Each structure stands twice: as structure tokens, then as C-alpha cells.
């Protein structure tokens, strides 16, 4: 945890080209870092092998380090109650922590994150018996955290709090509906420099997202600076009856809150 990000990153990029296997440091150092992070995030709880319980999909090599799409899926029959995503070598490693409510579906969660250097990512599931289960992926990407503040961030600041919801297909009562929530928010991580003022833009990020359907909780997400500009959350929910309303409350680290409500029509209507 003490090593400078820059030093690690530079080492990792020596001979970047052919050496796909090049990594910033050795497996032992990575294991030690993950151990430290486990302690910091989950305390003394043991974390078991998540094979068969949780999977993490992430690109081996990110196309754009400031926007790395990841997907976490969990087994339907394992009573998963929440998941956490940890990007070990990022500043702010705990990217997101999600608790699923009674009408949330823990089976699927998609996020977009920043990746600052070649790193292990861990996804951890908690099951209703209180046990933790992990899976990991190694991702090659660098620079996502200090990508300059440009047009995109200016546009998202101008529209901060605007939200969009996209439903995948038609909603049917009693069946899981896949949705994508888009939140306009620059999610400044304090490492980006403003092009005009030359000052580092102060940290301001989405801290909490609460989603409910007709008053029942879908999910509660705690975010951090590792989420990309304009956070996007893919999730599933289980509407008991349709039509209904999906409500979203977002709170950021400046304590600003934003709310939105989306109609979910019954299929065929």
C-alpha cells in the first residue's frame, strides 16, 4: 500500500509490447496486497474460493483505461446477498459495494471503472449464511485515474444528476428485467487536472445509489472514485406487478442528492 503508483506503473510498462506476461510486481506482492485489502475491507473474515458462486468478466487488456466495462454474475441457487468489486492497485481500491434488496437480482451486475495500472481485480460475494467468496481477474490497463478532465467531464458537470434508464426487452411481472441506469456525474477522483485552471479538480464522486421498485429495494450501492465518469450500473430486478415505478436516489461526496423516477410499463402496453 505504501508504494507509489507511478513507480509500479512504470516498472510494469518496461517492455510493454511483446511481453504480455509483464506485470508490475510478482505474485507474492500481489497476494500480500490483496491480503492487506481484505483486512481493510472485510476485517478478519475469511474469504473462500468463489468458483461456482461468483464470476468476474473484465477485458484482459482494456481499450480505454478510463472506462473498463466489468460484469459480475453470481449463481442463482447460492443466496448471494451482496457483492463487492476491488481493484487492487487503484487509488481507492474498493470500487463498489452492493447490497441486493428483496426485488433485486444478485445474479447480474455491470459497472464501468477506471484502472490506473496493471492490476488484479477481485469480486467478492456474500451469501446469506454470512460467508464470503472471491474470484479474481488480471487486467492490463494504465492511466484511467488521471485521464485529463476534458469535454466529457465538462458536459457531465453541466448536466450533473441527469439520469437515464434503459430496459432490455419488455418487462414481465415475476420475471427478472435487465436494466441499465446511467448517471450524469463527473466522478472527479482528485487526480485529474483541469485544462484551463491547471489545478487538480477536487474529488467529488458518487457515493450512494439506491434503487427501488414500487417501494421495495432493488439494490444499494456504495461507490467510490474508481467508477468512471458518468457512472453506469447494469442490474436486474424482479417486478411483482406491472406497470410500476423504478425510483433512484443518488448522493455524492459533496452530499448533493439527485432523484429520478422511471415508469416501467407492462409488456404490450
Amino acid at each position, binding site marked *: 500500500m505504501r508504494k507509489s503508483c507511478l513507480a509500479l506503473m512504470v516498472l510494469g510498462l518496461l517492455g*510493454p509490447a511483446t511481453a504480455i506476461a509483464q506485470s508490475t510486481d510478482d505474485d507474492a506482492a500481489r497476494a500480500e496486497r490483496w491480503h492487506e485489502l481484505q483486512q481493510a475491507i472485510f476485517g478478519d473474515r475469511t474469504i473462500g474460493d468463489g468458483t461456482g458462486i461468483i464470476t468476474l468478466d473484465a477485458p484482459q487488456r482494456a*481499450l480505454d483505461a478510463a472506462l473498463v466495462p466489468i460484469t459480475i454474475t453470481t449463481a442463482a441457487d447460492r443466496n448471494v446477498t451482496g457483492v463487492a468489486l476491488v481493484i487492487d492497485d487503484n*487509488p481507492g481500491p474498493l470500487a463498489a459495494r452492493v447490497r441486493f434488496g428483496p426485488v433485486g437480482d444478485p445474479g447480474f451486475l455491470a459497472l464501468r471503472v477506471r484502472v490506473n495500472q496493471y492490476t488484479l481485480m477481485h469480486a467478492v460475494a456474500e451469501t446469506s449464511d454470512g460467508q464470503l467468496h472471491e474470484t479474481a481477474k488480471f487486467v492490463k490497463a494504465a492511466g484511467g485515474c488521471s485521464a485529463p478532465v476534458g*469535454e466529457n467531464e465538462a458536459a457531465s458537470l453541466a448536466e450533473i444528476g441527469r439520469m437515464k434508464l434503459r430496459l432490455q426487452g419488455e418487462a414481465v411481472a415475476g420475471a427478472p428485467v435487465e436494466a441499465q441506469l446511467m448517471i450524469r456525474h463527473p466522478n472527479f477522483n482528485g487526480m485529474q*487536472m483541469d485544462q484551463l485552471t491547471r489545478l487538480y479538480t477536487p474529488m467529488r464522486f458518487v*457515493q450512494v445509489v439506491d434503487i427501488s421498485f414500487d417501494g421495495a429495494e432493488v439494490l444499494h450501492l456504495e461507490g467510490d472514485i474508481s467508477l468512471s465518469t458518468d457512472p453506469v450500473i447494469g442490474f436486474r430486478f424482479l417486478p411483482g406487478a406491472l406497470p410500476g415505478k423504478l425510483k433512484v436516489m443518488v448522493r455524492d461526496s459533496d452530499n448533493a442528492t439527485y432523484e429520478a423516477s422511471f415508469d416501467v410499463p407492462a409488456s404490450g402496453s
Partner: protein
Amino acid sequence: MSSRPVPHPLQLHRRRVLFGGLCLCCLPTRLRAGSPAGFATEEIAPGIHVRRGVDAEAAVENAGGIANVGFIVGGDAVLVTDPGGSLADGENLRAAIRRVTDLPIRYVVMSHVHPDHIFGAGAFRQDNPAFIGHARLPQALAQRGAYYRERLEAVLGPGRAGPVVMPTLLVETATELDLGDRAIRMTAHGPAHTDNDLSLFDRRSGTLFPADLLFVGRVPSLDGSLRGWLQELVALEALPATQAVPGHGPARVDWPAGSADLKRYLHTLVEETRAAIRANIGITAATETIASGERDRWALFDDYNGRNVTRAYKELEWE
């Protein structure tokens, strides 16, 4: 998900020591066999000399000479139009100038922040020229310069990238300078290829230097704004230019005809990305399909297209 008190995320933040904006744009991702080390320029109009860069990533074999660079000779001074992709590339360019003229090298234009265009600037410090850049170039260099240098040294070897040279003369909108009976118009553009693109126009020969606002043959890289780039191309087409020197591609192309492929690619990105967003096709799937009809038309397509799509998607999904 846990009943234990959760440490606030801020307590977990690793030390924030990063400086350089660590964008991977135009950076070498793969070593390739490049061209021979020979440095040849071509006189595309009286007094305008261009070295065609190879369509490859920076490598020892090409000394980082992958962009089109050159110089304009006026009545009493020389202007360098991009100093090259490494210190050695810049030194080679300077030697090429001295084979042509003894006039002082008064201006070195740095068209934008990408390393393949500007790391040769250190070779011209001895001439004490004005280093000219877009008003947003200093910030971009402050963020990314050190990182670009590390990446380039990793490819070319220690000490071989060249120093990060800051511009000394900034262009906010547009300005003109005189090389002695040869006026050069310089225009600072809105976000397009990058957010700090500077173009030149030599009225005497009708030659436009759009730098990386024009890619020919080598797949474009998007590091600014997709819609902005298309807008800036429209503005450039209105100039009374008859030929242009692409940032990558042949030493010269007819203008504005030479932008046809680029515009087709950028329009394809816009249209297919919008269609994917409308059809709820996710960003990962989008990167695998969008603009794939362009694959056979460009060198290095697979090295850049996916990232271009990601950027396009991010820009267009909020329309």
C-alpha cells in the same frame, strides 16, 4: 453486505502521487519491424519538405519516426512542422534541413500532444526557436508528457525518447507569422483528434498542414471529440487549399478530396455507435462490431478501432 462497520472508502485510497495523464493514445503497443533507418524528405511544393512516417508503431527500427514531419523554407527563416517522434528523429530532421538551407530555424510547431509528433523538439533547442502550440498544449503536456516519455524510452531505450519541451508561443484562436515573403496561418481547433490540435496553412503554395486532423491509410485515433472532429474538418475544407500533408499517410494528398476516407470512417463511427446505443447493444459488444466494415481499409485497424468505439460510445450515449 457486512454487518461490521465498513471503513470509509477514503481511508483506503492509496497515495496519490500520479502526475502524468496516462493516456495510451498513439503509444506503442507492439514492436513491429519498421522501415530502414534512412531519413528521406520529399519537396511537395517549392520550399516545403516532408518526411513520410511509416505506418507502424514506434520501434527501434524506425526511431519513433512514424508521423509525417517536415519544414517550410521562407525568405529568411525556416519553420519546422512537427519536430519528430524522438530525439533522434528530430536530429535527423534537423540534418535534413541543413542539407537544404542555412537559414535560421525560427519556429518549431508542435501540432498536438501526441509523442510521435513532438518528442524530436529537443533537437532544435540549440536553434533557440519559438516552440509553437495550441493554448491547451501546456496542460496536456503537463499531464501526459512524463508518461509518454517513459513509454517511449521503454521502446527506444534509456535516454532515447528526448525531453518534454514546453511550447513558448501559444495560439488561442488563430494567428499568422511571416517566414520572409511567406505567411503561415496557424489555427487552434476545438476538441477533435485531441483537444489541442493546431493546423497550418501556407497560402503561397495552397498547402494545408492539418497534422493528425487528417489520417490517410493509417487508422485514425480518437482522443478528443468525434463530433468536434467532423466539425473541424468542415472548417478546414473551406480553406483555399489544394493539397494537404496528413499527419499519417502519404506526404501529400489533394485537398479536400484527401479527407474522404477519414470522413467516411468518422461518420461510420457516429452512425453505427448511435445505432448500437439505440438497440441497447452494450459497450463491450459494440467495440467488437462497430466499424468492422472499415477493417480492411486501414493499417493498424485492430490496434485503435476498439478504443475509438469506446470513446465514441461515451460521447454519444448522452445525446
